[in-house]
């Protein structure tokens, strides 16, 4: 099979599944829907694996599928670029997607929208594949918006819930703010590079490193910096970076499988992927890299803090995702693109695992997501428990787990980076390690350890997965069915081992080839490599580093506060009430946005409408001129009174005026 066919299968197989399940869901039934989509995604994963193998053999691929449009002598094309970066992303995306498809069979078993759900997640897989496989900015934007659409549809999957349909609108609009920057960036690329093809643009980029945008388009900025910042605004929306992060916690209103697939493992990493893909551009702008460092550092630290005060199990994981996305962004800012992708990959595994495990807990708790009602679940749900523990250890960067290798590399990379603001970012990510350990193990202890805080239900015939309405009555948690725990195990394996296996080749073995470009003055990964002596040595050394002890302190504190002395947190809470409120209210950003942006737009719109359209234009100008005509007609009517002496009088005046005028001009 040639590469083009492989690519087409990888992209289109999930689309075929989505269309079949979506349009003919009633005909093929529930089993038909999950089989057709799972086969589609499985085919896509096989094709991705073939593509990756080919790439490893040195066969890069860059080809056009079709010409989308022509304009002004330019061709806008749909095409694929398969190199180390995209092939890796393809495999990660399809693997996680496949796991989530299988898990969904169990999680959504009793949902009336079963076929629709499978159709959506397959459509998502297609969109995400188009995004990562693209060889040009246009198709990138296609995929970018398409994943946004599916995210919108899935957050609002339970469309009768007011919170869900609020959250999906918010997610779409906040993302659109990012896309606004993104499209400006694309337009700048088109105008100044005369092409949207990655290859052509990247080839021209070094020659334009010092070029400034001329006054001809009204601004005078360094070209590459302007492009990079515009594009990064897009990434801030999609990858939920401060201050465009506000949509992600609310997106937890969607069913848990999509929280794992879209809002943790894949879609939210699209921004990270995009910046890495554009590394030949970002390398040329130190200003953009500094901005990325600052935004990433703020996100990594301050979003992690919010995770500490959440009681909803999914929201804790959501804030942890925000924080980890901040880590990846920081890595990008430090020019450690390969490390960012490495963390993206390990995070995809362990965060999908944590979400799916949380989902398993939620099934067990009959859709109660409040951790204050849980506790002691380790004996009742042993597989969920052990896989959650693995996920948590990976998340806090415990040595030898996958997250350790990637997170340690990020901290190291930032430490070595000379880009302005790197020092600040280093402090943020280091302190972040402590915070991560604290909220992760707070969650772990509250859910799995200690005494159960729920009322045990006598019988075991409780309804499972009952269309997701929270029950607060007695429950009887026990292990979820095999289709649910099997993906947990399948994700737990890479969560443990993938870091150790991949770090050598991925970061220091030249794995990414030319797909990621780093200037030698920014090459922090190379410097780390000088001290790298294999995964074993790094793991062992990991026990002696500052981050390790910070993480250990976080775990210990969580253990003390939430298991040993559960009375203390309440006391702390009342002692530092303002600080607690600040965190509980998410820095008041949602309120501010609702008031300032949403309310502001409505007020301005209402004002313009009432004052501008109804008042001035219609009231004064349009109806006013109609009235004016009526008034003039009224005046004219009075003149035509019908009395002869009126006319005679007017005639005399007229003659008089005319004669005066004539005499004056003689």
């Amino acid at each position, binding site marked *: 099979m040639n590469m083009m066919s492989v690519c087409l299968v990888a992209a289109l197989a999930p689309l075929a599944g989505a269309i079949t399940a979506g349009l003919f869901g009633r005909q093929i039934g529930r089993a038909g829907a999950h089989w057709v989509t799972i086969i589609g995604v499985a085919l896509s994963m096989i094709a991705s694996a073939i593509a990756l193998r080919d790439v490893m053999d040195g066969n890069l691929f860059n080809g056009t599928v079709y010409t989308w*449009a022509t*304009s*002004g002598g330019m061709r806008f094309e749909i095409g694929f670029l398969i190199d180390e970066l995209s092939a890796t992303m393809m495999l990660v995306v399809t693997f996680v997607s496949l796991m989530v498809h299988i898990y969904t069979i169990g999680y959504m078993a009793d949902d009336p929208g079963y076929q629709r759900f499978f159709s959506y997640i397959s459509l998502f897989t297609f969109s995400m594949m188009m995004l990562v496989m693209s060889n040009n900015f246009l198709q990138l934007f296609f995929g970018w918006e398409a994943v946004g659409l599916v995210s919108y549809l899935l957050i609002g999957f339970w469309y*009768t819930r007011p919170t869900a*349909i609020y959250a999906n609108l918010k997610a779409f609009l906040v993302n659109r703010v990012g896309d606004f920057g993104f499209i*400006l960036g694309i337009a700048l690329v088109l105008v100044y590079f005369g092409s949207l093809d990655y290859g052509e643009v990247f080839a021209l980029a070094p020659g334009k490193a010092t070029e400034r945008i001329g006054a001809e388009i*009204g601004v005078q900025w360094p070209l590459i910096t302007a492009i990079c910042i515009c594009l990064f605004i897009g990434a801030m929306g999609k990858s939920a970076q401060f201050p465009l992060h506000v949509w992600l916690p609310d997106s937890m209103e969607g069913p848990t499988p999509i929280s794992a697939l879209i809002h943790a493992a894949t879609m939210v990493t699209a921004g990270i992927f995009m910046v890495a893909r554009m590394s030949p551009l970002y390398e040329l702008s130190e200003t953009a890299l500094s901005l990325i460092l600052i935004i990433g550092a703020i996100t990594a630290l301050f979003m992690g803090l919010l995770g500490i005060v959440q009681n909803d199990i999914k929201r804790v994981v959501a804030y942890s995702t925000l924080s980890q996305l901040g880590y990846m962004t920081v890595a990008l800012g430090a020019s450690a693109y390969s490390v960012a992708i490495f963390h993206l990959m390990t995070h995809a595994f362990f965060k999908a695992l944590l979400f799916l495990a949380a989902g398993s807990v939620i099934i067990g708790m009959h859709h109660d997501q409040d951790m204050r009602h849980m506790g002691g679940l380790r004996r009742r749900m042993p597989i969920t428990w052990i896989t959650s523990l693995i996920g948590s250890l990976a998340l806090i960067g415990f040595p030898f787990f996958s997250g350790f290798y990637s997170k340690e590399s990020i901290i190291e990379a930032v430490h070595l980076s000379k880009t302005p603001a790197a020092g600040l970012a280093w402090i943020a990510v280091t302190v972040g390690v402590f915070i991560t350990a604290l909220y992760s193990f707070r969650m772990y202890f509250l859910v799995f350890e200690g005494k159960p805080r729920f009322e045990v239900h006598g019988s075991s015939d409780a309804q499972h997965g009952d269309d997701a309405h929270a029950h607060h009555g007695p429950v009887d948690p026990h292990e979820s069915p095999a289709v649910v725990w099997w993906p947990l195990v399948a994700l737990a394996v890479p969560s443990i081992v993938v870091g150790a296996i991949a770090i050598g080749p991925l970061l220091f073995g030249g794995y990414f080839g030319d797909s990621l470009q780093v200037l030698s003055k920014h090459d922090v990964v190379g410097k780390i490599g000088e001290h790298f002596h294999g995964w074993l040595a790094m793991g062992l050394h990991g026990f002696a580093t500052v981050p390790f002890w910070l993480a250990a302190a976080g775990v210990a504190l969580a253990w003390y506060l939430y298991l040993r002395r559960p009375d203390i947190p309440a006391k702390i809470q009342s002692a530092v009430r303002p600080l607690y409120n600040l965190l509980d209210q998410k820095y008041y950003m949602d309120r501010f946005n609702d008031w300032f942006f949403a309310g502001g737009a409505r007020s301005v*719109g209402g004002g313009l*409408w009432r004052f*501008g359209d109804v008042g001035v234009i219609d009231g004064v100008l349009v109806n006013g001129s109609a009235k004016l005509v009526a008034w003039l007609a009224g005046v004219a009517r009075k003149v035509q009174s019908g009395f002869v002496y009126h006319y005679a009088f007017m005639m005399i005046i007229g003659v008089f005026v005319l004669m005066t005028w004539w005499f004056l001009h003689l």
Partner: protein
Amino acid sequence: MPLFAPLSTVIWLPIIAGVLVLFTGSDRNAVLARWMALAGSIAGLLVALPLWTGFDRTEADMQFEEFHRWIETFNINYHLGIDGISLLLILLNCLTTVLVVIAGWKVIQARVSQYMASFLILSGMMNGVFSALDAALFYVFFEATLIPMFVIIGVWGGPNRVYAALKFFLYTLLGSLLTLVALIYLYNASGGSFSLLDYYVLPIPLTAQILIFVALFAAFAVKVPMWPVHTWLPDAHVEAPTGGSVVLAAIMLKLGAYGFIRLSLPIVPDASQHLAPFVIALSLIAVVYIGLVALVQADMKKLIAYSSIAHMGFVTLGIFIFNPHGLQGAVIQMVSHGFISGALFLCVGVLYDRLHSRQIADYGGVVNRMPVFAAFFMLFAMANAGLPGTSGFVGEFFVIMGTMSVNFWYTFAAATTLVFGAAYTLWMYKRVVFGAVANDKVAALSDIDRREFLVLGVLAIAVLCIGIYPKPLTDVLNVSVSTLLEQYAVTKL
């Protein structure tokens, strides 16, 4: 050539069919009137297809030209001919007419023959506007289109239809009277010709150009409509029957933009260039100001009407930045907006036929009862928000790309449509479609029937096809657009 005179056929066949439908008389023959109208509209579409297949995509001159002497005293001729821009609009018009006839099948129960005839006759006249190469002929068709639409709003409209119909009629008529003055000036200046092609090469001093531009602008800006002469549109839409709204939004608004392209730009290029910043400013106000105004509308039709104004702002922006991306984007936006706004008005019509309310507040949770309808509505809402993969994206994309080569801040203002367009469309969608069933009336809704499915289905396919593969459109446009820009680039001072 398969037909003797294809352009005359696409103009006169619907008009003759319309007149024949009128002869069916009273509503006792309503069934016959409907079927005849359907046959007439389908025939109208079929005779337009040879234009598409026979169109030479590499030819810069006007095609399918027809020339007959008409009023020799004033040298007025029956001169027809089209380029790629006209071609797409003619096809859009013919297709829309078929859909409008089907959409009015059951809803219209009073004066059926007259209703159907109005649309057929209107369709033929608009084809006339799109193919006229004689200024007098253009003007006659342009003005004549007002009459059927005036009747459609005034007879089959809502409670306040008389105010709306008069406002529509007077607003647009006053604008176009100045056009007549400009055409008479050109007639004299050119030594007694009404040929547009003659005007294209006629040197005109700048002051005169500016006066002509302003006179033409008065007509076309009202028609588009551009801010601040847009206020007739929301009223007209709200009061018009569904079919009227569809044709108004899908085709009639394009007459104004087409006028800019066919008359203003090539006849008075220097004035166009001089006044472009002014037109661009109005276009951007349309995008931003109208976007915000659309947000607060409580009436679905009004909201879509305002959204139309904002989208047409993109069209005028694309025209007046004078580059291939912009102009091509503008034309594609016109076609796409025809499908999308038509579809959205049909969606509102589907709801209105069942609940007899256009107020957003009267709905909520429609998806629970009408899932198929909700899926279509979602597609068109997303297309209205310019989602890639739908036709709504293509035009906006090219206009944004074109604008960036002119000015960053223009682009900045234009791109806000990504946020505003999504905000007003999806917020409306959320309140109408999502949520729990809001009241008993919503609970009693039934999903769309086969006839409605057919109409929305055709539009959905069109919206998706253009979005995924717009190349057939751009192939038709490329040469016409570059020819037009070449004409524009030659100064006439």
